[in-house]
């Protein structure tokens, strides 16, 4: 993250050390004082893609809602105590298929600076979790990419340290970032899963704007594996692009040629899917992306590829993946 032209600061957020650190990191950013982050983030009629040209940072104090139950769209990998938190809203990347474009009213990034309140709520949730035989499974890079923002604020590192010291907690850090060096100094812990989203080279180049190349992601993953981290590979979302079968099977072969298969913790596989309302909002703001104008099928409040296409994609790619990974370690989202 090279710069923010503006930083909006809740009056209450100023007293936190993280705010001080960030304001020192961006001394030339214009500072605008606000009462509540929603005054800026929640304005009507904001244009997500125009804001992506010049993303602003909003420093805020989260007041409640430090953990949420996992939704049907997310993947709990079979963990019964599945939660996520929102340490940040929005992401530094601008992927064409990203649901955040339709979910949030703004492309600006909100960073909640009262980290200790999140930690406290997590400790409490761990102690009070319903299924005591299982850990509390917490996704900490949800609706954002925490590791991609690590050079601004080391939240991934803080959460890894927190998890390492907290019994019965398992956290997932999902990312597209290649910035593994930012957490390399930390000792690998079984209480953390580093989950990398991977896409074929061509997909990453065309549809994952601002995100690191496949090669850089693979290098970061291999290094993390060598350092003993539990690494999850997320082939999700799979897009039905031209020659998708060839492109994706070729890509999976490449991934498993490069990465030591035996060190893969588990894998997730899912085809593109999105809340129907989000897609409707996104289509209003951008009419330039082929993947958003695919003739999707609507199932309830979800849009995805027609059933036959979904089955065809999952079946083909699952067959490919099971050449490398046992099926019980592959979570599928159809």
């Amino acid at each position, binding site marked *: 993250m090279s710069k923010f032209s503006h930083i909006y600061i809740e009056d209450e957020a100023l007293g936190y050390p993280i705010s001080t650190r960030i304001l020192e990191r961006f001394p030339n950013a214009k500072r605008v004082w*606000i009462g509540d982050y929603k*005054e800026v983030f929640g304005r009507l009629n904001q244009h997500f*893609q*125009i*804001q992506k040209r*010049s993303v602003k940072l909003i420093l805020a104090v989260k007041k409640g809602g430090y953990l949420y139950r996992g939704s049907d769209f997310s993947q709990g990998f079979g963990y019964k105590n599945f939660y996520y938190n929102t340490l940040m809203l929005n992401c530094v990347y601008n992927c064409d298929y990203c649901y955040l474009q339709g979910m949030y009213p703004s492309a600006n990034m909100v960073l909640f600076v009262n980290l200790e309140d999140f930690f406290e709520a997590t400790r409490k949730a761990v102690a009070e979790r319903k299924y005591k035989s299982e850990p509390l499974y917490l996704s900490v890079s949800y609706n954002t990419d925490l590791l991609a923002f690590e050079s601004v604020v080391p939240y991934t590192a803080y959460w890894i340290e927190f998890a390492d010291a907290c019994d019965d907690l398992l956290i997932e850090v999902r990312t597209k970032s290649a910035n593994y060096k930012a957490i390399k100094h930390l000792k690998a812990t079984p209480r953390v899963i580093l989950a990398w989203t991977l896409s074929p080279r061509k997909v990453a180049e065309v549809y994952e704007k601002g995100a690191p190349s496949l090669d850089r992601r693979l290098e970061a993953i291999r290094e993390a594996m060598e350092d003993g981290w539990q690494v999850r590979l997320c082939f999700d979302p799979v897009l039905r692009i031209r020659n998708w079968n060839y492109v994706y099977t070729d890509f999976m072969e490449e991934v498993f040629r490069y990465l030591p298969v035996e060190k893969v913790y588990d894998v997730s596989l899912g085809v593109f899917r999105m809340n129907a309302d989000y897609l409707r909002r996104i289509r209003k703001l951008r009419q330039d992306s082929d993947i958003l104008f695919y*003739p999707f099928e609507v199932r309830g409040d979800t849009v995805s590829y027609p059933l036959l296409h979904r089955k065809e994609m999952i079946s083909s790619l699952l067959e490919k993946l099971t050449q490398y990974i046992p099926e019980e370690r592959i979570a599928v989202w159809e």
Partner: protein
Amino acid sequence: MRKIIITALHAEAKPFIEFFNLKKSNLFAKIPFYSGEPVSLCVSGIGKMRSAIATASLLAQEKEPHNVVVFNIGICGSTTKEVNLGELFFVNKVIDHGSGRSYYPDIVIEHNLPESQLMTFDKPVTQLDFPQEYKGLVDMEASGFFEAALTFLSPHQVVCLKIVSDFLEGEVINKAKVSGLVERNMEAINGIISSYDALCSFLATDVLDANEHSLLEQLSMHFRLTFSQYHQLIEWARSYKIHKKGSLEILRQYLQYSVSDKRERNNYLEKLRSLLLDE
């Protein structure tokens, strides 16, 4: 991209009228309006209510509101002498003194101007009237301008530029001085206005051109499509253009068929869907 300047005073407007060679128009009986290229201009009169009325009147009749940027430009006071008289500011926050409500433009262009917050009052104020904790610019229009403009536009289409004319010490500022302050900042203001052209090309991303939209509209009227069916048809057409890279002229043949009831309409709609979407 259409650009509209809204000033409170004629003395603020005069330099723009001359610089852009604007012509008086009779668009409104009681709100002076000047048209031209690349900008139009409106003199709202003093006060946030008048500013809101002028802004709303103009924007309510815009046919393509997504293609407009409005600028509130004028003089203002400053509570602090840390700024210079005649200095031009890009306003990044407007606070309405009466309601306490705040307004924030989206500043998506790069610029070199200093920025400031601004508080809008209902009447002229001096240093003695002030909330001690407030430090920044002061005017009588901006909150009304924002309230009206944000009803019609996105926050990146609403811009407020203010020139410091006084330090709230009760001094009288004559018309010539007001015009002079604007004239001296004309180059910088014009630079800001011009930089919004870049947004225009960014926004022009629709794969359907005007002729294609017209054809879809004809089909919609011909088959008496509902509002949502019409929008569905537009989305299918975009998908077809993007994925199949074909011409929508294949749809024109359907204009020769007529429908007499809903069932027939829905049958034809399904044919259009199949033509546009099926692999």
